[in-house]
């Protein structure tokens, strides 16, 4: 009797799990399908190799090269900045603060709060920071704002990886005479290279796809920026502007832009995976 009930239970939960997995897969396919269906006809070589002609609202000619380049500049710059700030923090809370559990938990809690803050708030914060510092909408302002946005993600993603480093490995490093910083950068970092790359990738993906934080800070332009102080176009905003255009052809171009953005993110993930696979070999599996 009991065994039979368990078998039925097992079956029901299995069906539920399969169903949930399939729903998610289906939704994902649907998104990709609609981007492909609407975007592919408008996607042309012209689209990815030229800057817009006739303005971003009404322009049916030209392309979105300005936004492609702008988004890459912006997200790579912001990710780099966030990494430089984030790596020491993530290592510090896991190595130097190893015996200060309460402080570490408080830091984690605040980072999680920051992670949850909507990106438009970061945009507004960046905007007021710009006014305070006297900078105009520019690539630099955008990089700084997006860096603020992704720093909590970057730190927490790396933190989760460093947390898994076994205590024995840390003690091994200590007993060989390593200082805390040597243990952090030479042992923890090396052990976690694949995870750190995943953290960078996660932040890059978040940074390249966000529209609200760059709206006030980076601006928009038809040109490819040549310096940090110029306004810069980004793909999410170009999607936004094209989609809000009254002209159907331009609206369709929004889906082509979305397709380009998706492909860029796909390329980033794939190459990151390949790189992290290469560094996997030194990792010790405990």
């Amino acid at each position, binding site marked *: 009797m009991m065994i039979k009930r368990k078998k039925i239970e097992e079956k029901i939960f299995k069906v539920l799990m399969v169903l949930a997995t399939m729903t998610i897969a289906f939704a994902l396919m649907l998104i990709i399908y609609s981007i492909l269906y609407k975007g592919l006809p408008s996607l042309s070589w012209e689209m990815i190799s030229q800057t817009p002609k006739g303005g971003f609202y009404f322009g049916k000619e030209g392309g979105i090269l300005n936004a492609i380049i702008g988004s890459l500049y912006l997200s790579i710059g912001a990710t780099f900045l966030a990494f430089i700030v984030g790596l020491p923090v993530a290592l510090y809370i896991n190595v130097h603060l*190893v015996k200060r559990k309460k402080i570490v938990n408080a830091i984690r809690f605040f980072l999680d709060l920051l992670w949850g803050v909507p990106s438009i708030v970061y945009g507004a914060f960046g905007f007021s920071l710009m006014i305070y510092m006297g900078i105009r909408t520019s690539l630099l302002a955008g990089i700084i704002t997006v860096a603020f946005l992704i720093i909590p993600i970057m730190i927490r993603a790396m933190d989760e990886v460093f947390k898994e480093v076994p205590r024995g490995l840390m*003690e*091994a*490093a200590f*007993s060989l*005479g390593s200082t805390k910083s040597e243990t952090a950068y*030479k042992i923890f970092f*090396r052990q976690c290279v694949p995870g750190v790359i995943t953290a960078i990738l996660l932040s890059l993906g978040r940074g390249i796809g966000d529209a609200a934080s760059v709206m006030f800070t980076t601006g928009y332009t038809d040109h490819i920026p040549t310096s940090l102080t110029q306004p810069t176009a980004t793909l999410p905003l170009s999607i936004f502007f094209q989609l809000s255009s009254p002209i159907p052809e331009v609206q369709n171009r929004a889906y082509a832009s979305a397709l380009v953005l998706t492909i860029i993110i796909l390329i980033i993930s794939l190459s990151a995976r390949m790189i992290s696979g290469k560094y996997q070999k030194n990792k*010790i599996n*405990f």
Partner: protein
Amino acid sequence: MNNHTKININNVNLSIGKQHILKNINVEIPEKKITVILGPSGCGKTTLLKCLNRLTDSYEDINVSGNIFINNKDILKSNGDITELRKKMGLLSQRPYPLPMSIYDNVAYGLKISGRKKKRFLNKRVEHYLKQASLWEETYDRLKEPASSLSIGQQQRLCLARGLAVDPEIILADEPTSALDPLSSQAIEEKFIHLKQYYTIVLVTHILRQAKRIADNIVFMYLGEVIEQGPAESFFNNPKMEKTKAYLSGAFN
């Protein structure tokens, strides 16, 4: 015996939070001998070992009092460089923790961080210590491979080589054979017997037979206290305390 004492533990008490882990520990550890800290699981042997190179520093809420003299210097009081203290001791833990790098770099790591980076010097030292840990024959043609490619037994010998490479005076070993197969365990034990002419070895174990095989000196602990200590022969053949007799007859394990 007194002038050959390497480590002198004096009235050491240790508590974590409200838990009193080590109670009034007084132990003398002779130089260039194998001292086995013996006792059932959870009696504080490992904690006592970790006091010796101050790995206890990295635990929360831990409170250590008393004195531990190594070369007549109180390491619990000294504000000196803790990395220097730790370099005097090689550590083998319950399971091997090789560093996430190549076999070669594992052995060279300790030397590199003390600023000795000359390639020829490192090559010689790495070969020397791998030979000392009886690992050279198995690894000389694959030094650039990651340490993770070695078997567990080989990894433990690599950890020994790596620990010896920083030129310690003391080897601390925390149940170093507990994750190993019988042959690898035997290899480690034989290494210890060979190495005791150069190093002071402190070995923690709960395996009575292992203690009988290799110990020169025994410290028997039970529930955070040292019950009996002394030369292995008299400890095994002529135990003085009731608890020791009970333990040796297998009453608790």
